[in-house]
């Protein structure tokens, strides 16, 4: 059993309370020590990505071995899909922690910020690494409660209102998830994901499980901000401090929302065609409505938050297209291509959306405003922010040679080969409107001749913030290389294989 798996969960959890303790003894320790621990997590995540390859590593906590081939105890499972998510979480977390060294000087209570940050990272790592339904729920709640407190961190009027709305909606979603887990336990008498799939082979009551699937989709759909459940996202992501906005929009809605939906629907439930059609249409709805709501915004972070909804719609759309093809039992290679496009877009979106939010934070740090009409002419005064923002805007709109182009191309090609022509046309239209949105952002923020009376004292931001932005900009260019077949085989193909064939997942876990 691989000991790296519990270490990835324990280290941030212990680090949170250690920061609170040491912060009272030594003055500035939590700031720098956070970045060191996150760097250790980055190294551990990449080590596990390279090590795991196409296999699955199972960790039985407490050493409870299965009795009569029935797993008892809590299992932690690391496979290719989890390893990709771990790398995304730790990379964006590290860069966000480095950015916070100079950004959080404006707030009081710094030690609490770093403790909550570690709790959020520990919760996300726990969700990604667990092989047990109730364990997902517990770590989800740890992470979500930390994010409620982080959204309300600068206690102003709008932050508190955003956090209240987020909390009420999030609590209802957690209740729905708990209720769904209870219904699954009632029928199958087990909580292990692989074991539930094994029990489904003996008998599967379709109407009962469609109800359970709808509950799980509603609960996790609210955490992932899919269209009918998106109401909390613009307020929460625009009121949080900027490094937390980058973490929330770049990693959080993926690790606790979309990761769980894709994992449970492909590897646990038996997919029926009606639910697959529902998921695809929800994805298309998010995609279209999100971008049309984003075009008309004048607050820079609200615009970025609405465009997050639309990009997540792309991922859900491609996963839904894959599900429709699997449930009909035709063209498995096109389904694999669609899921590959979705996972690749997930990785890309973390990079460029994180970079966009960090840029918005840099502008807010220097100018003190978030309104697009009050900015202008920043391209001479803040050159690095302007250059990285240009790279990120071109990436998100799908302009070659940046990474967004390749992932959107794979999704559109997969939709065309599966003969879903309407979805492909919608994806192209949404991409064009996204380009319009981000050209508007670039023009008003950076290239306009703004009002000259306030912009005298504006210069570039400090060292740690510049480091994070430049690193993410380089990542945006380098991640485009993942589209080529040799890199795709290394990183994306193991994840897609495990998602497509649930039997590999079961055999490795139950057979051990």
């Amino acid at each position, binding site marked *: 059993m691989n000991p790296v798996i519990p270490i990835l969960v324990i280290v941030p959890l212990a680090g949170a309370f250690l920061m609170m303790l040491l912060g009272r003894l030594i003055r500035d320790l939590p700031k720098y020590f956070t970045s060191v621990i996150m760097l250790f997590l980055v190294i551990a995540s990449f080590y596990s990505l390279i090590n795991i390859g196409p296999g699955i590593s199972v960790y039985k906590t407490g050493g409870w071995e299965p009795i009569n081939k029935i797993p008892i105890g809590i299992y932690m499972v690391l496979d290719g899909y989890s390893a990709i998510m771990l790398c995304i979480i730790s990379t964006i977390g590290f860069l966000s922690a480095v950015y916070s060294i100079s950004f959080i000087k404006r707030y009081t209570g710094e030690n609490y910020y770093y403790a909550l940050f570690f709790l959020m990272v520990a919760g996300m790592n726990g969700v990604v690494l667990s092989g047990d339904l*109730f364990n997902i729920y*517990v770590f989800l*709640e740890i992470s979500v*409660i930390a994010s*409620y*407190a982080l959204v*309300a961190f600068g*206690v*102003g*009027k*709008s932050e*508190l*209102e*955003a*956090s*209240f709305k987020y*909390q*009420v909606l999030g*609590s*209802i979603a*957690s*209740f729905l998830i*708990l*209720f769904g887990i*209870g219904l699954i*336990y*009632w029928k199958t008498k087990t*909580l292990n994901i692989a074991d539930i799939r094994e029990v489904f082979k003996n008998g599967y009551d379709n109407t009962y499980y469609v109800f359970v699937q709808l509950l799980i989709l509603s609960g996790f759909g609210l955490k992932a901000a899919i269209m009918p459940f998106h109401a909390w996202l*613009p*307020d929460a992501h*625009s*009121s949080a401090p900027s490094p937390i906005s980058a973490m929330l929009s770049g990693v959080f809605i993926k690790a606790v929302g979309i990761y769980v939906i894709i994992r449970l629907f492909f590897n646990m439930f038996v997919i029926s065609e009606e639910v697959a059609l529902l998921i695809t249409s929800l994805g298309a709805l998010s995609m279209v409505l999100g971008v049309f709501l984003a075009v008309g*915004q004048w607050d820079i972070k*609200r615009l970025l938050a609405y465009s997050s909804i639309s990009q997540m719609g792309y991922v859900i759309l491609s996963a839904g297209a894959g599900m429709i093809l699997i449930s009909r039992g035709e063209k498995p290679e096109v389904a694999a291509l669609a899921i590959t496009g979705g996972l690749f877009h997930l990785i890309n979106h973390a990079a460029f959306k994180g970079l966009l939010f960090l840029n918005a934070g840099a502008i807010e740090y220097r100018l003190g405003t978030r309104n697009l009409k009050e900015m202008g002419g920043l391209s001479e005064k803040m050159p690095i922010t302007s250059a990285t923002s240009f790279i990120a805007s071109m990436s998100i709109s799908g302009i070659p040679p940046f990474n967004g182009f390749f992932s959107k191309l794979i999704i559109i090609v997969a939709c065309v080969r599966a003969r879903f022509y309407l979805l492909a046309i919608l994806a192209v239209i949404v991409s064009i409107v996204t380009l319009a949105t981000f050209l508007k952002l670039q023009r008003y923020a950076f290239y306009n001749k703004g009002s000259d009376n306030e912009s005298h004292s504006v210069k570039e931001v400090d060292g740690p913030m510049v480091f994070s932005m430049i690193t993410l900009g380089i990542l945006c260019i380098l991640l485009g290389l993942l589209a080529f077949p040799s890199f795709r085989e290394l990183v994306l193909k193991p994840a897609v294989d495990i998602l497509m064939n649930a039997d590999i997942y079961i055999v490795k876990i139950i057979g051990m």
Partner: protein
Amino acid sequence: MITYLMCFILFLTGLYGVITRRNLLKIAISLSIMEVSAFLFFTLIGYVEGGKAPIVSPAEPNQVYVDPLPQAMVLTAIVIGLATTSLLLAIIIRIYGKYGTFDIREIKNLKG
């Protein structure tokens, strides 16, 4: 059967409270009522006919116990509910300090 119906009625009461009440504190209390209905449902699932409370004593070797796993899940969920409610109450107190009112119709700073 009637006990499952009572759980459902409790859930509907909580949901009605969250949707229609205007006072912030009443919304928080209704959320707690909704979560309690989920806990009751969980403990009802694990009932075995003629079972006793699951505490092992060495005197009786062949005793039928009720299922202890949902009870462990409910304990964990109660702790999580406590943390969520306390954070919600802290935010409500600060909202009262900033806005001066508990009425949710007055709190409309963010729109669009």
